């Protein structure tokens, strides 16, 4: 039986900042907030131990125009590459913040102890990455995200950040246009607890796991923060833009880093051709992700893929790099290929196919991470500033979470004094407790969340995947609606309080279903092809009608779509070729 928590926190004075999510963005925000004002009461609420967050899976690196490797690299070039990569949907003022803060943030990470691979002159090493005009991706072997995450976690421990590990965020407590704080479940006890807070920062990562087995993401990348904010009345932005990474492993969808191509890997089809010559003759394998993913998908659709019981695939050939480079620069990748695919890239090409990887969309924020709701912020993949527009460049996601995590942390620290939220009413806690218990009641006809989750991934992959068209998307929308209806019959069989993962996975599915509706609705609405969003029935970019952000608000259980202009700057709209 779940217990309502007549928790001490209901009556206690609010936290200055409650951060939901303990990945790179959340931890940077926490650390920066403590740095801005050491007297603040900062809590990080995370459904897993923060050091397990999905930031750790980012292998390749983070872009910054340090000009360590290419002496002529500049912040301006980084800005241009990012805007062009975004297919001109990024807000140019936000991109300027991202790229000009980049060198600072990489140095700051170095200053606090992040291990970076080094060049001969002892500066931070950089390597080429897709869509970038210069080698500016800073890395630590192929474990960059992991080492950054560990460093940030260590620094947060040093600074005395208050961690609530294994707490599952459920709801934002809202009064009019203001937030009172957060309501979450203590996973270890099953208690529903209130976290009154002057400010809340959502940093829960992306939502690409809604593609389920067609996704490279961790099981928990279910868009919890976006879904909570959305249901609480905060708009989402650009949700239709989901990036497919070109090189997921054939069997598992797990990712082979772009660094593998950065180090010089080839993409090869069944005929043995380096087929990227057809699509990006100059950049070849190092074209931007949307283009390379589409190229792979086209090769497969046109019958030049290889066939296996686990599906059609292509090959990533690293053999010519030699054992030494593979062992020293890509050790984790080699291990993954061996564990999950049974292939040693030293001896054999690696079977790959595109996999849903990153969500460009998220909670609509300004350049300081603020949402339209007083005291509520979002950062990282969870938020959408937007710096990635219609397509994110490799090496810009770690950068995004660091730069905007830090900015949101500082903004919340500076602004938290302005807010004086009222207490979270106990009735809200009781209501949630009641709702959750509803899942556990025996039902005549019941559904298992596992099957629904599987079907959601399948319909998204088939109907709202790399290549999209109206009829298919409509089918997808129908499926999502029917799955949402069936979800009301989901039964949770574990009726215990302690560590009820059965219940958690059901709640995560609800979040994915709500967000999937926005992705599909946006995909249908946007009648053009831009960045990761490719419509067979509208194959070209239509700047006249569609050079604008999509905005989603939650109305009676459905998304209502609105629009917002793109902030332009120095760079005019251009055709995007590589």
């Amino acid at each position: 039986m779940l217990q309502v928590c007549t928790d001490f926190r209901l009556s206690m004075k609010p936290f200055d900042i409650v951060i939901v999510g303990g990945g790179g963005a959340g931890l940077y925000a926490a650390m920066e907030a403590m740095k801005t004002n050491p007297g603040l009461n900062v809590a990080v609420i995370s459904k897993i131990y923060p050091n397990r967050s999905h930031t750790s899976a980012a292998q390749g690196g983070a872009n910054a125009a340090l000009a360590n490797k290419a002496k002529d690299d500049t912040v301006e070039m980084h800005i241009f590459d990012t805007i062009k990569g975004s297919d001109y949907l990024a807000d140019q003022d936000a991109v300027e913040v991202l790229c000009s803060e980049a060198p600072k943030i990489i140095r700051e990470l170095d200053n606090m102890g992040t291990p970076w691979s080094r060049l001969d002159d002892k500066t931070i090493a950089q390597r080429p990455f897709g869509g970038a005009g210069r080698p500016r991706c800073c890395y630590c072997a192929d474990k960059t995200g992991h080492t950054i995450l560990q460093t940030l976690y260590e620094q947060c421990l040093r600074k005395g950040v208050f961690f609530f590990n294994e707490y599952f965020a459920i709801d934002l407590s809202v009064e009019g246009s203001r937030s009172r704080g957060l309501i979450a479940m203590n996973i270890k006890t099953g208690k529903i607890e209130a976290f009154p807070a002057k400010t809340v920062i959502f940093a829960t990562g992306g939502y690409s796991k809604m593609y389920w087995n067609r996704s490279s993401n961790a099981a928990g990348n279910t868009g919890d923060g976006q879904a909570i904010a959305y249901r609480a009345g905060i708009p989402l932005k650009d949700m239709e833009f989901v990036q497919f990474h070109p090189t997921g492993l054939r069997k598992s969808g797990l990712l082979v880093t772009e660094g593998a191509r950065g180090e010089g890997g080839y993409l090869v089809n069944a005929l043995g051709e380096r087929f990227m010559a057809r699509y990006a003759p100059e950049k070849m394998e190092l074209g931007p992700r949307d283009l390379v993913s589409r190229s792979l998908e086209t090769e497969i659709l046109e019958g030049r893929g290889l066939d296996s019981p686990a599906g059609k695939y292509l090959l990533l050939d690293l053999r010519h790099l030699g054992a030494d480079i593979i062992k020293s620069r890509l050790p984790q990748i080699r291990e993954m290929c061996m564990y999950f695919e049974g292939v040693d890239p030293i001896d054999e090409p690696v079977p790959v196919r595109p996999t849903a990887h990153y969500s460009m969309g998220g909670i609509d924020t300004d350049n300081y991470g603020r949402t339209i709701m007083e005291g509520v912020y979002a950062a990282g993949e969870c938020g959408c500033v937007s710096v990635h527009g219609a397509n994110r460049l490799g090496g810009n996601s770690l950068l995004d979470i660091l730069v905007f995590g830090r900015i949101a942390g500082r903004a919340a620290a500076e602004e938290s004094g302005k807010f004086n939220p009222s207490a979270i009413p106990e009735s809200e806690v009781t209501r949630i407790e009641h709702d959750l218990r509803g899942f556990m009641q025996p039902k005549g006809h019941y559904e298992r969340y596992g099957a629904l989750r599987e079907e959601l991934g399948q319909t998204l992959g088939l109907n709202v995947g790399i290549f999209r068209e109206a009829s298919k998307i409509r089918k997808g929308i129908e499926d999502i609606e029917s799955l949402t209806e069936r979800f009301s019959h989901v039964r949770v069989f574990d009726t215990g309080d302690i560590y009820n993962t059965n219940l958690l996975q059901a709640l995560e599915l609800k979040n994915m279903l709500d967000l999937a509706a926005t992705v599909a609705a946006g995909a249908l609405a946007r009648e053009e092809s831009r960045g990761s969003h490719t419509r067979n029935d509208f194959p070209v970019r239509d700047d006249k009608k569609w050079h604008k952000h999509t905005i989603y608000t939650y109305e009676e259980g459905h998304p209502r779509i609105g629009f917002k202009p793109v902030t332009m700057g120095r760079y005019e709209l251009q055709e995007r070729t590589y």
Partner: protein
Amino acid sequence: MSDTTIQHHVESRDVTFRVHRFNPQVDSKPYFDDYTIKLEKGITVLRALNYIKEHVDSTVTFRAFCQAGICGSCAMRINGISKLACTTQVWDELDRSRETGIIRIEPLRNLPLIKDLVVEMDPLVGKMKKHSNWVDSRMPEDEWGKKEFLISEKEFLTYDKATDCILCASCVSECTILRAHQEYVSPAVLLKSYRMNVDSRDGIHDQRLAGLVKDHGVWDCTHCYRCQETCVKHIPIMDAIHGIREDAIERRGTKDTSGARHAEAFMDDIAKKGKLVEATLPIRTNGIAWTVKNLLPMAFKMVLKRRTPPPPPLVKASKGIDALRKEFREMTGHVTKDHQKKSGE
């Protein structure tokens, strides 16, 4: 990742997972449930557990997140050895299991049990905090972001492997000494401490080292190498532990810990006799009072059985001792030179 679509392979068979169950709300003690499912070759233990959770028994509880061997969530004991479920092949475990067709799944050891296969990680985090497992930068915070530290690839390589650690706690679970005393620092924390201590950007080396040489610290390790052998990232954890000891002796001498005095005694004896003088080892390690209190009661029986080691004057030096002494001294010269070179850098 799919839990229901199991890869298409020729070979398939029934596999029984004997899973440790315990829900403190209802169970007075742990028990095992057997789940027999038909599996095809190539599947990992984690995917099999996911399948069980979704199709057989939703109440089976375990942690899993990235499912790709990088987050460290799904460490558990599989056929008695701590490892990640997501990188472990069912077929490999079938080869290892003692009872044909049965794979035992148990929670990690040496951490408090929460439910089924889930253990409390807070004690480990507590130890990380206790031993300042972070770089405390030499650079003041308000200077951060302005310029890089210049670090050689050579220095990077001294902590490169150690930063592979994903805190999965397999080493914690396998640690001999932790099992004997829960306050022991733990292999993972020693590894992280070492990683911080060799980082030239860190400014609290001496303070951290002082904490590590205290009771339940680095000298309690019994060199069983289980941590290293079961490390899911193949990190040579014992090298880190030895590294801390080497550093402790070099910087702090041997006065403050019995472990260091114990180690130093080996050096002395080899230099003098070429072999260990065991009779006085306890005194040199722990002092006379300790030796009288702890070893005298046993000495009587040892004498009866002629098992007492000979007193120092009776320990015959090795036959080639003169040559050895000379060589030892010569090497001491080399080492002194090395140190001078190092401190000059």
